[in-house]
């Protein structure tokens, strides 16, 4: 008899392993850590957006009860070195910007950190921070695009030097020239802030010359490396913990200056320091999605087949970094279009360097592209879904390669069915009282980024048959710990209840930050490879062991099942890991796995795709828009845990709704200060905004992306969502809104 293949644990919708700590309030986040002698640090931000500090008077603050120290540029030690801007996906030092505050008297943006106040209680530090008196020499800031439009430039590179400022394939001019129909439009985007519910927080402690940081981050190693370089102390002397992270959405993807300041403050006062940003400081301390404007020109023939696509973006960056979120690359791969031109133009302004925010770039790029396609569909009187099918990219239009896996057609089909797309009649929306009902759709795309360097994990099995996998990744809500236990269980053939994942500590094997929807793929692959190595090691031991029932067997004929190693063709012959280990007086065994960068040029192009279908109700008289139903279908390769994956996708879709209808940080152009830095004024959805959301998973086999065939689910849910909503509003009202967010005044 042959062993029936065990039901894989991977994919099963298991409940999250961290349910109990998270529902009982016992999960300790970085600002929940209690240490003996803990003190509290509060930052002071610059009141002006541009100029110099002429005087800083900390006497009142120092006199306030409980105050231990006030650090400013006048007494803060200089940093040893400033690492270059590099996304934390690369795995090394990854500052959010190449400007480090509190090194001199210059002010580049409002809210720039200019002092750290340390006191024995939070309330005392918070108040003393208001007693630091600062005088400035102020200059007029450039705070919005309109103030610097004439100084726009095309950067040679963006995104930490990883992407060109200008890219082109085919002859765009000729393509637009020969087009029978052209759509040209400009789409504008308000700045956005990530606003995870947990504000960025670091608790710092020095002991025996070593630095220990509890840091809310998407990548503990990124904090370790960045702080190490800036402080000039060995990597090995810094240990970063990040056991629970209260959301990030890009705010904690890079290392900003507060972990460094917490470390310096702790060294200065000789006690542990907790530095938790205030909500207001979350608007000026960890980047944002920049103000931007996209100009699209697309050409098509009468049948709607694209001939050329030109996509230019203008956005505001800081005075020190050429940053633009990557809006132009992945959208250029969705459709079979022979000619494409993407150009970034930047304006330097008095802002901190913008950064990642969920669906960084694709969220804005796909709003522009998918809105423009809808405009084209309207012009040609072609059903918007049909238009997209006519332009389906059978191969990657950028590289000409075949796809490693695709699935977009199936996503269209499933989503259309869910929303009832066939009832949609162009120009004829349904009505219910004051509400007009519209349907809209859009494609979703998100790139797949291979690892830049080896991603490592360790798997260990104990003699009692329980196992743990470890990697220095952070769990910020993705469900990584749950999914990784499943990966471990399958590779070892153990019940998942016997498997555990541990992360959040830089003493564990190193992985890059979990950003860009790469967590499941990178950490998952490393865990898988570690567990497979461990399994092979133990099978190797067994077949070489005269006392094992498997002695002399072909290792390739031995499979793990139900906690045992057994012959595939004779499952009765075998033994458990526990028996093997116990016989050898071995308390445990472990192995490493390393998921490296691809060797040579990959044979296929890799991308993640999906489709959005939404139903909106518009009360045009009062300008109200309510999203009623959202149906998303996505093809994320293999799914590690259907429950947590669907959760991520649903969450991304609701982020898209939020981007579409609510989120805007308003800049006071005269002062360069954000005008609504609070969760009362920067609107994100509440329960009452929530529509009915369905998520369909189209699983596709992919043997190229990584050993597990996993793509990613963190951001694709948000890609194209805002366009689907705008397109539905157009269907309902005939009104084309080309700005985000779309608010009351746009639909009135």
């Amino acid at each position, binding site marked *: 008899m042959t062993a029936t293949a065990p039901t894989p644990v991977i994919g099963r919708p298991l*409940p*999250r392993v*961290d*349910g*109990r*700590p*998270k*529902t*009982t*309030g*016992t*999960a*300790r*986040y970085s*600002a*929940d850590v*209690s240490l003996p002698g803990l003190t509290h640090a509060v930052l002071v931000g610059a009141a002006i957006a541009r100029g110099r500090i002429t005087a800083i008077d900390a006497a009142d603050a120092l006199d306030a*009860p409980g105050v231990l120290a006030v650090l400013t540029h006048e007494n803060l030690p200089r940093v040893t070195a400033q690492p270059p801007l590099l996304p934390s996906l690369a795995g090394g030092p990854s500052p959010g910007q190449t400007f480090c505050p509190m090194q001199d008297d210059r002010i580049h943006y409002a809210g720039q950190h200019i002092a750290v106040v340390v006191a024995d*209680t*939070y*309330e*005392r530090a918070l*108040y003393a921070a208001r007693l630091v008196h600062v005088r400035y020499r102020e200059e007029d800031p450039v705070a919005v695009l309109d103030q610097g439009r004439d100084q726009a430039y095309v950067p040679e590179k963006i995104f930490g030097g990883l992407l060109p400022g200008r890219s082109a394939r085919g002859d765009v001019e000729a393509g637009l020239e020969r087009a029978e129909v052209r759509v040209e439009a400009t789409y504008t985007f308000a700045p956005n802030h990530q*606003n*995870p*519910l*947990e*504000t960025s927080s670091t608790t710092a402690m020095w002991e025996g010359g070593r630095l220990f940081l509890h840091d809310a981050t998407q990548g503990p190693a990124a904090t370790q490396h960045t702080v190490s370089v800036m402080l000039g102390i060995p990597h090995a002397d810094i240990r970063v913990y990040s056991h*629970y*992270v*209260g*959301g*990030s*959405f890009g705010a904690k993807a890079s290392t900003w200056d507060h972990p460094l300041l917490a470390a310096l403050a702790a060294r200065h006062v000789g006690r542990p320091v907790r530095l*938790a940003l*205030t*909500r207001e400081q979350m608007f000026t301390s960890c980047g944002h999605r920049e103000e931007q404007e996209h100009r699209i020109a697309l050409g098509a023939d009468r049948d709607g087949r694209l001939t050329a696509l030109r996509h230019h973006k203008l956005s505001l960056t800081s005075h020190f970094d050429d940053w633009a979120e990557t809006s132009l690359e992945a959208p250029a791969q969705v459709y079979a279009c022979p000619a494409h031109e993407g150009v970034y133009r930047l304006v330097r302004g008095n802002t901190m360097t913008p950064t990642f925010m969920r669906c960084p770039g694709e969220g804005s790029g796909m709003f522009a592209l998918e809105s423009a396609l809808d405009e084209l569909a309207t012009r040609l009187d072609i059903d918007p879904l049909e238009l997209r099918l006519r332009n389906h990219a059978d191969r990657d239009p950028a590289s000409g390669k075949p796809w490693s896996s695709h699935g977009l057609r199936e996503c269209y089909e499933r989503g259309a069915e869910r929303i009832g797309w066939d009832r949609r009649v162009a120009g004829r929306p349904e009505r219910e009282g004051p509400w007009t009902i519209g349907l809209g759709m859009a494609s979703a795309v998100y790139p797949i980024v291979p690892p830049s360097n080896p991603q490592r994990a360790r798997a260990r099995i104990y003699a009692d048959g329980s196992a743990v996998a470890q990697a220095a990744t952070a769990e*910020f*809500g*993705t*469900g990584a710990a749950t999914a990784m236990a499943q990966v471990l269980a399958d590779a070892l053939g153990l019940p998942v209840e016997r498997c555990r994942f541990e992360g959040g500590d830089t003493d564990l094997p190193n992985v890059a930050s979990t950003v860009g929807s790469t967590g499941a793929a990178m950490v998952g692959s490393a865990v898988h490879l570690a567990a497979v190595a461990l399994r092979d090691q133990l099978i190797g031991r067994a077949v070489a062991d005269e006392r094992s029932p498997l002695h002399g067997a072909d290792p390739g004929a031995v499979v793990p099942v139900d906690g045992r190693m057994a012959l595939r063709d004779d499952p009765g012959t075998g033994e458990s890991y526990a028996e093997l280990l116990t016989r050898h007086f071995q308390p445990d065994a472990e192995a490493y796995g390393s998921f490296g960068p691809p060797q040579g040029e990959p044979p296929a192009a890799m991308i993640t795709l999906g489709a959005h279908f939404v139903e909106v109700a518009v009360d045009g008289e009062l300008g109200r828009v309510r999203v009623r139903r959202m149906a998303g279908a996505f093809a994320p390769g293999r799914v590690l845990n259907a*429950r*947590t994956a669907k*959760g*991520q996708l*649903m*969450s991304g879709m*609701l*982020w898209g709704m*939020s981007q579409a209808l609510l989120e805007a940080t308003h800049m006071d152009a005269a002062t360069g200060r954000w005008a609504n830095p*609070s*969760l*009362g004024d920067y609107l*994100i*959805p*509440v*329960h*009452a905004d*929530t529509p*009915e959301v369905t998520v369909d998973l189209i699983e596709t086999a992919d043997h190229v992306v990584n050993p597990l065939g996993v793509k990613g689910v963190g951001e694709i849910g948000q890609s194209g969502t805002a366009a689907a909503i705008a397109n539905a509003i157009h269907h309902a009202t005939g009104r084309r809104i080309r700005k985000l967010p779309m608010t009351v005044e746009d639909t009135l």
Partner: protein
Amino acid sequence: MTTQKPTATRPTDTGPLPVRGPGPVPVTLTVNGAEHRVDIEPRVSLLSALRDSLLLTGAKRGCDQGTCGACTVHVEGRRVLACLTLAIACEGRPITTVEGLADGDELHPMQREFIACDAFQCGYCTPGQIMSAVALLDEGHASDDDEIREWMSGNLCRCATYPHITAAIRAVRDTTSDPS
């Protein structure tokens, strides 16, 4: 119109009220059934007292401005925001936090359903959501999904797990109010 500036009706003859602070003063708080004496300044919020003095860090400081709901606890059985409440004003008013919901190892039904319905991701807003949800059922504002959503709107979830939170509340409502 009918406005009158104040007019004398009776003389006032009261003594001065005792003044406490501004330095630390002993304050007795009753939290999850146990009495605790803490020395805090009157300006210290209930949220800070719970987190920093009693090390009950379930209630979270998401905004400290009354705009997110992550610090929701019960005072005298009603859901309130600990960030906008002074600890000293809670003397004599029993407080329940998320740490006080479970009965030993036995989770509160709302905690169980939050896990079963995948009603959290990062978990940061979760203690506040759960405290709010428990109160919501006591208040009787969970008759249908729309009502649940409206009356839970004071608790932001940036992971946007809202549909799953609604499902969890519905599940607890349907099991606990089952007339059979």
